């Protein structure tokens, strides 16, 4: 059964005009796509491809030149749709004179959340994004990463069904970036729908179920990530460590079946994993240590 569409975009076009109404740029051209309930959807594209414009059209911050946008079954211009939406902007445009608690209290009030619920939810979210130690500091004193975290917390204050994330990992260190991706996974597990735009392809690949690639306002690709990235012409085997003679035997077998062994090596971990592992170990065992020639020394 086809699952319910949370976002329906039909022939969406956006042309930016100057003060005199003259056409400046066509930011989006006849975009049509659906986002289904419970999926993590990625909007990809280089700078100026129309990702952020699409998000802003979804949020009613911009008005379409042509076409139609429905979000949670309502037109994008209806304010009532915002009850079930969480939005993390590209830069975290929060009020920098507020502290974390005041920020979440303010946004909680905008959702008409009762005082006690607001307080509990703010406390929970501040802990979740790891800002408990800085909850009373004004946001102007926050680093970029901390600002992104509190921005994420404000996007989740209403426990939304649909979360729109504009460049969610930008400005975050690898650990923060991993936390963000873990959080997106958790949101998905809870049945939430997430739409994110990013040009950090690895992040998108890690978390998204489906993606759309935009280029100069046109939709170029729209499909599931696993389907798009799979190379049907190649088969990959992973085994435990094999001695040289066994490898040669495997090669022989493959030759007999008309195939060739394209590559044999030991898989490497990625730098992100190494970084996260080092930081987590350092948190568990504080003290100076360094890695030399691939052999870590004991903590001093």
């Amino acid at each position, binding site marked *: 059964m086809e699952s319910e569409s949370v976002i329906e975009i039909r022939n969406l076009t956006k042309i930016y005009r100057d003060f005199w109404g003259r056409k400046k740029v066509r930011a989006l051209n006849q975009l049509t796509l659906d986002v289904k309930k419970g999926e993590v959807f990625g909007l990809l594209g280089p700078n100026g491809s129309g990702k952020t414009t699409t998000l*802003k059209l979804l*949020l*009613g*911050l*911009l*008005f379409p030149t042509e076409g139609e946008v429905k979000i949670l079954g309502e037109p994008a*211009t*209806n*304010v*009532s749709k*915002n*009850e079930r*939406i969480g*939005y993390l*902007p590209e*830069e975290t*445009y*929060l*009020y920098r*004179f*507020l502290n974390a608690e*005041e920020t979440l209290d*303010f*946004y909680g*009030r*905008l*959702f*008409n959340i009762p005082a006690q619920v607001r307080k509990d939810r703010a406390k929970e979210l501040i802990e979740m994004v790891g800002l408990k130690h800085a909850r009373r500091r*004004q946001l102007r004193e926050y680093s970029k990463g901390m600002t992104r975290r509190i921005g994420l917390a*404000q996007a989740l204050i*209403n426990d939304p069904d649909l979360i729109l994330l504009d460049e969610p990992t930008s400005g975050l260190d690898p650990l923060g970036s991993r936390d963000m991706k873990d959080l997106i996974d958790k949101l998905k597990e809870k049945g939430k729908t997430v739409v994110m735009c990013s040009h950090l392809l690895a992040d998108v690949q890690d978390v998204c179920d489906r993606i759309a690639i935009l280029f100069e306002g046109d939709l170029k690709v729209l499909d599931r990530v696993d389907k798009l990235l799979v190379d049907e012409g190649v088969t990959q085997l992973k085994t435990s460590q094999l001695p040289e003679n066994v490898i040669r035997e495997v090669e022989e077998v493959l030759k007999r079946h008309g195939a060739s062994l394209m590559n044999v090596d030991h898989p490497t971990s990625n730098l992100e994993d190494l970084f996260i592992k080092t930081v987590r170990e350092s948190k568990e065992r504080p003290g100076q240590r360094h890695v030399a020639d691939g052999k870590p020394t004991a903590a001093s």
Partner: protein
Amino acid sequence: MGSEFDFSGALITYISVIGSLLFAIITVSVAGSFVVGGKTGPLAVLSILRLAVEDWLSTSPRRIWAITKLTILEAIRRKALLVGVVFAVLFLFAGWFLAQPASDPEQQVKVYVAFVMRTIAFLIIPMVLLLSCWGIPEDIRVRSIHTVVTKPCRRQEIVIGRVLGFTAIGGLLLAIMGVVGYVWILRQLDAKGRERLVARVPVYGKIAFKDREGVDQKQGINTGDEWMFRSFIEGGTKSRMIWNFEGLDAFNLETADHLPMEAGFQVFRSYKGNMDRGITCQILVVNPDTEKRAVAPLVTSRDQAGKIEQTDNAFEVKEFRENLLQLARRVVDDEGNELDLFKDFVSKGRLRVEVLCLPTQQYIGAAGPDLFVRLPDKPFVVSYAKGLLGIGLLTLMIVVIGVCASTFVKGPVATMTTFFIVLVGATGRAFLDTIVDAKWVGGGAFESIYRIFAHLNPQTELPSTLPFKVMQLVDGAGVGFLRSVRYLFPDFKFFDLTPYVAYGFDVPWTNPVPPNSGALLPSLIITAGYLLPWIVLGYFSLRLRELEAK
């Protein structure tokens, strides 16, 4: 005396202006959208109106309070309250320049009270003007508004919250400065000065004149001053100034042994005479229905128990200061009958008082407000608080205009726009009314230019040829434009209540004195009348624009 604010007329004008504006806006929108989008255009307009109704029905006090609180915190944390420090510094040193311990206590009160109230107004008004004009544009510029409008926050809640927040900041400063200013006034004044801190409650009458032949006149004699605010009567003739008081039955005067009055007459001497003595005058009380009249005896001394000891049938006018007059209740007429001032002369709350100048070839002059019944004084703090309320209402008006302007233009333009509206509303509204109501002689802009270059005076008739008709038509269009926009400018003259407080009067609710000056109820009504249309305008401006900083 004092012209009643015409509430019913104001309400009719208000409804007709708002109705015409709404009709014009909807007609233009529907027609324009039909031209641009065909049949779907008017449907889009209807859809916008439907959304607007939905938005307004969903207004939430909690969200409004959130924005209000945010605005207050923003102003405090951005050090807007530093203006209070400027206020404190001004007051630390103001005493050096204003203190006049040896001068008249009345003058001291006027100077100190006016200084305090004007300083408060001149510090708060620019501050709230700047705050209100920059709040929303700054939110749009740094895009923090994106995190607000993507919540279920309606645009009118943003506008109302901002208005309330800035007004609260202005109100907080006003309260602090008001208290500090009050204490400062008390400390600056000596004991005599403090005694002068009162709020007199006057009941004014309508003035008329009789000339030397006893014939009714609207005005008295002009003794040479071109500006005829006060006109004069000649002494030793039938000439007199007549005040008709009304509504005296509304005041509980029945238990009093006198009718308290206060006079502030001017004297014109045609010969020097005895300069140590004032010009002698007499007061007659007249029943307006029966025309019964008698000389009013004025209380000159009382015994220790406060009972009337002596009265006099005349009094000397003390120039440039108040003349407190107690018209004794017991009146004796020409035939020696003992009469009661309140029972025999006050009829249905009305009383006529006639003032005669006794010395021949000397003159006394007055305008309507120069003689009034002085009801029991109110504490000074009452009129002071009302005066501050006037500043508060002005602050609210400026905030509303500023916030509304800032919803469709950037901060600097919004500031200029608001400043212009305030300037015209405070100084040019009467002039605008004169032009629009065709009371201005010499024609419109083009006609005036022509007259200047052609050396024609304003009364000279112009030839009725085509070029002149076209010129007058263009001028007429200009006046039509001014007519359509004049109500955009609130009439701020009603908000200036400082003179009442400084001159020791209670601030009136309805009857401004002189006419067309400040009064509390008109300023409240004007504020209420402008508040909603400006907020609605701000709502549509935010609702119909893309909130993307450009």
